[in-house]
């Protein structure tokens, strides 16, 4: 795992981190990238939000109008 990731690689890793345990090198590289990249930090946060949203989707038909 190289140390300096591109945004393309970082987003890919951020996504995979939701599906498998990242290796140590991967985690370090991702964290370093997120520390300096606002776009990917935003992306990372949005991915977690997306997960939360989909989890709640089945319950979401509580009140159609509100």
């Amino acid at each position, binding site marked *: 795992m190289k140390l300096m990731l591109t945004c*393309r690689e970082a*987003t890919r890793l951020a996504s995979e981190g939701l599906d498998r345990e990242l290796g140590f090198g991967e985690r370090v590289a991702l964290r370093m990238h997120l520390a300096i990249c606002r776009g990917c930090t*935003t992306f990372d946060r949005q991915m977690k939000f*997306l997960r*939360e949203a989909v*989890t709640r989707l*089945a319950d979401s038909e509580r009140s159609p109008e509100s």
Partner: protein
Amino acid sequence: MKSPDDFRSRIEQQRPYLLRYARLQLRDRDAAEDAVQETLLAALRGEAGVAGRSDLRTWLTGILKHKIVDAVRRASRDSAVSLDAEDEAGELHELFDARGHWAARPTSWDHPDAALEQAQFFAVLETCLQQLPVKTARAFMMREHMGLDTEDICKELGITATNCWVMLYRARMALRLCLEGRWLGAQEPPRK
């Protein structure tokens, strides 16, 4: 002492929820109804198993997940060939420049938590999900809606783990864009 009729009506009350749950994954009303019907029958047969359980819905959803996976397996088998030709993520390349940096940096979503309180947001999310390619959506929902491991998803869909991760990545990228365009970005555009 509870009568059998009481149990039957209690599980029957869960039908709308179960139907919705199944439809989100299967995207097919008939298939969803079949899975729910099988679930309720299995539940009636296995009433003893629920005796000590406080959460009927959780128990029924657990049964339903197995029925859904069976249905997904059948559907994947039927459509294995036609779906292999699914798009190769052409549109995702445009998100990054030649050096692998964002072509247009994601804007942060203000107050996403508030969105989770709004029924309308979930309607938008569903629309976005429906726009995903079939196989991509199938993998994504198995992961995020049903909470299956990638290992199980690979097995059911007959794809490699790497393939599966790429597919999930693609789904997330597409959903992010769709939500940004239709909801979160459109609410208040924070241009910086």
